């Protein structure tokens, strides 16, 4: 046995990264143009974003009690009030959680009872701006305790879900260990088991495919296409860059399923997300906080009631002391952490936040009523100056599709509609 082979390059890099959190990673993709790339991030929070006086008022520059933590970033934020998921009552699907999650970013009827009918807006953007990068997009999540359709907001096309990485530690292995630098002095193994398995699986898939009928072939194709995606990524590595970027320092692995670790895992996933953008490994990412049917009791906040029960059992969101408000304010604090990180990375004349749009969504306003209208969504950052920010806008029941059209336009997709055109009224006046 070749002893050098015992420690694969992947393992070595993972080890190095784990030890030296701030080590410069000379990996990343050479930037083709001087202007910093624009990026898109979508963040999903469970159980709604309220419909109360705690929201900021249209026209105000004060973000109000719920979003108080974000006040320092107010000039770079648009609060969009009263958006509506207009497709949600149409076509197959389950309850409000189920439909809301699947419809809110796709803007169209579901393909069937359990899957979306089209690509979500982040995936549409990824298909436009993600080409040539190791990952067209990356999906992060914290503590999804069961995997029904309620926890599936991201779809690359009709029926094809993009599951999220739930462990930042596994994500680190996948994303950073697979992005070695050309100059890193590692002992390259003579044989890469992963690569030879990939080649073999592709060869056998091609042979098997010819023997299958249409139905079975579609299932095999999902594997074959994913393998090809990995093959393309490996071909783009190792990569070179002008600017360095920092590998996140995750520290020792902790239980990603334990509720007590929910805040920590969330922060580590945000670290991973930002580092992936910074290292130009992707330009589109998502972060999903828990199940849409919220299975967290927020014991770390002293709430101790299941988020889902909290939604249905209380109607006192107007009360400053309510548990629900506490939870919502906490999510605003987490969002501030993400914005702070992006704002701390200089880029061009500004920061990475300026070149990014972070879209904060939930499928509900009043989650207790499963109300998919009167939504409050936030967009943060301005996509390199494309959007005017610093506003609280009343969207007056406009369709979320119209926001998605605006977002597509910002990322170079000239479409006039998004999702099902029947639910579209043109881009929102955000520029």
């Amino acid at each position: 046995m070749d002893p050098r082979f015992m420690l694969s390059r992947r393992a070595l890099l993972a080890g190095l990264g784990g030890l030296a959190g701030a080590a410069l990673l000379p990996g990343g993709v050479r930037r083709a143009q001087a202007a910093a790339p624009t990026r898109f991030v979508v963040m999903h929070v469970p159980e709604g974003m309220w419909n109360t006086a705690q929201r900021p008022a249209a026209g105000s520059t004060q973000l109000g009690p719920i979003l108080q933590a974000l006040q320092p970033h107010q000039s770079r934020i648009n609060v969009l009030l009263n958006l509506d998921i207009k497709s949600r009552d149409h076509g197959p699907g389950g309850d409000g959680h189920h439909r809301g999650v699947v419809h809110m970013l796709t803007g169209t009827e579901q393909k069937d009872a359990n899957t979306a009918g089209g690509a979500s807006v982040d995936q549409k953007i990824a298909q436009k701006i993600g080409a040539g990068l190791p990952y067209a997009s990356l999906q992060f999540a914290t503590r999804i305790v069961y995997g029904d359709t309620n926890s599936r907001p991201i779809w690359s096309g009709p029926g094809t879900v993009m599951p999220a990485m739930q462990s930042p530690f596994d994500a680190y292995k996948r994303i950073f260990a697979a992005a070695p630098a050309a100059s890193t002095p590692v002992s390259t193994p003579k044989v890469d088991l992963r690569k030879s398995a990939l080649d073999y699986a592709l060869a056998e898939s091609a042979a098997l495919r010819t023997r299958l009928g249409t139905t079975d072939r579609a299932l095999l194709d999902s594997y074959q296409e994913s393998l090809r995606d990995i093959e393309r990524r490996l071909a783009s590595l190792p990569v070179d860059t002008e600017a360095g970027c920092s590998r996140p320092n995750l520290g020792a692995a902790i239980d990603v399923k334990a509720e007590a670790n929910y805040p920590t895992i969330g922060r580590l996933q945000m670290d991973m997300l930002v580092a992936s953008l910074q290292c130009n490994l992707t330009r589109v990412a998502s972060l999903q906080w828990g199940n849409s049917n919220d299975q967290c009791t927020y014991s770390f906040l002293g709430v101790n009631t299941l988020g889902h029960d909290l939604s249905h059992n209380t109607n006192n969101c107007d009360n400053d002391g309510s548990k629900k408000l506490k939870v919502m304010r906490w999510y605003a604090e987490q969002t501030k952490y993400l914005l702070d990180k992006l704002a701390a990375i200089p880029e061009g004349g500004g920061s990475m936040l300026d070149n990014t749009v972070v879209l904060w969504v939930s499928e509900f306003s009043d989650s207790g009523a499963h109300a998919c209208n009167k939504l409050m969504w936030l967009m943060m950052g301005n996509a390199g100056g494309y959007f005017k920010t610093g506003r609280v806008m009343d969207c007056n029941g406009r369709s979320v599709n119209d926001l998605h059209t605006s977002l597509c336009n910002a990322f170079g997709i000239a479409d006039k509609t998004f999702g099902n055109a029947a639910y579209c009224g043109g881009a929102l006046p955000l520029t």
Partner: protein
Amino acid sequence: MKQLEVATAPWSRPLTLGACALTLVACVGSIESIAELPGTEARSAKAPSSAGVGDGTETGDRAEPGKKTVPGVSTEPGVAKTPLLCTTPEVSTSPMRRLTHREFGNAVRDLLGTTSAERAFAPDTQPELFDTMASQGVSSLLADQYLDVASELAQGISNVSTLVGCTPGPADATCVRTFTDRFARRAYRRPLTTDERTRLTALYESTRSAANADTAVRAFVAAVLASPHFLFRPEWGTGQAEFGDLRRAAPFELAARLSFLLWSSLPDDTLLDAAQAGTLSTPAQLTAQAQRMLLDPRARSASFGFYEQWLGLDLLHSSTKDKAVYPSFSDGLRGAMLEETRRFVDHVIWEDDAKLASLLTAPYSFVNKSLAALYKVQGPSDDTTFTQVNLDANQRSGVLTQASMLAAYASSDTSSPVKRGKWVRTRMFCQDLPPPPAGIPVLAEPEEGISTRERFAMHTSAPQCSSCHKLIDGLGFGLESYDGIGAFRTIDQGVPVDASGSIVASDVNGAYEGGPELAQLLASSAQVRDCAVTQWFRFSQGRREQDEDACSLQALQASFSGNGGDLQTLLVDLIKSDTFTFYRSPG
């Protein structure tokens, strides 16, 4: 839309409702429709039960996932069931399936002797009860994970010579060839084709010349584990088409069907040898193999995979309780609750009489020190020891009244009659409930002096609400004697507990009092008995029953009823059914 299995009931009228539902389930349907429900005559013309409850047609297009009508179950009010003739075999199509994450873990355990079957795969989207019914597609993330796991397992082989059975090298070409053929036969559930052997040999040889023989074995193992022939279960059937477009499942396909049903894993060499020798086709041969396999410990752990999903125990893993309300609840107690039910199910199925009725009504259970305190019985003096004890028959009866179930189907700070009632209605009666509509009113906060039951009852007292909640609440209220972690109580929020319940829309309609009586009623219900078979059918086939499955399912239910609900025999019956022995291409 599906109807409740009440073939002659003129009860179902589509209607559109406004807001009227609470926490978990919806109210769709009318008060009249429920009031008109007769006692069901489920057995009058025995047919598979997969019925839904309520018309569910709030908008007319909210189809439930994968629900198809089966013959013999009328979906029209006032239309009698058509008796099934079942003169010729009929089966639904068998699309290719991907190994579930559980099956993958078991398979690599059996191939490589790894002890840990847990693999950190992205969870599949699972809208139904069972992982076998989850989405099958492979995302880029999952493909990455497959490659990671394949290469890590191959890299992790501690002693290549032990696995291979010789020291691989040029001098031992025959030995290596024997190993690769045997390993691949198990992994692919059939012998290698010539082409496959050529490709694998090329991989082995090129790796050996680039590195060494040990590395070549590892590369071979990683390649096999990433192969679509390992990860998927393609089938083609064998011989001429019969009965229209049916073909017999090929012997190796039968071997895999047997092992994935009984072991949730790969066939062993004995089974593959039988397939290769042509001695795995007759009902007697299949039965003999099934009986052999049921004696293997793998059958116990695999069947528990079914029971824990049917019972929905997974939910307890992620349940967090309010420490102020339930100070005794801890990760340790949670683990003990799960262990209790695991031991209980294992004992009923494999040590006791394997009867469904025993699962629902057995007077005993298994407790450690903490559980003994919860149940207020004498038990072991430590938490690592579990002993079998008889519980107070006035308080406990079978799995329904175990702490695991009662704690999982509760809120963090109270019991939940709705979660428990829904559990019984959907999992025990196989009756689907429609999704809740928008505009759900709010449930009051817990308050001293108002029992949980009253709080829920107030919430659903409006006629439109109670029409649907009659299906749920009458089942959940009977379990109000158990708090949110399953402890028996007589007082709730300072008020005496009212554990009177009632069952409607079933073949065991009527009033009852408390958990043990509810368990007895369920155990006596033909609908529940049929439902147990339906659930096993869904688990084994990885899908809901379709029209073409009606005869297979009916025969299974008749046999199950005839043998008094024997859950072990049900497995043997399953592997003899037409659905199991025939293959029909999905096109």
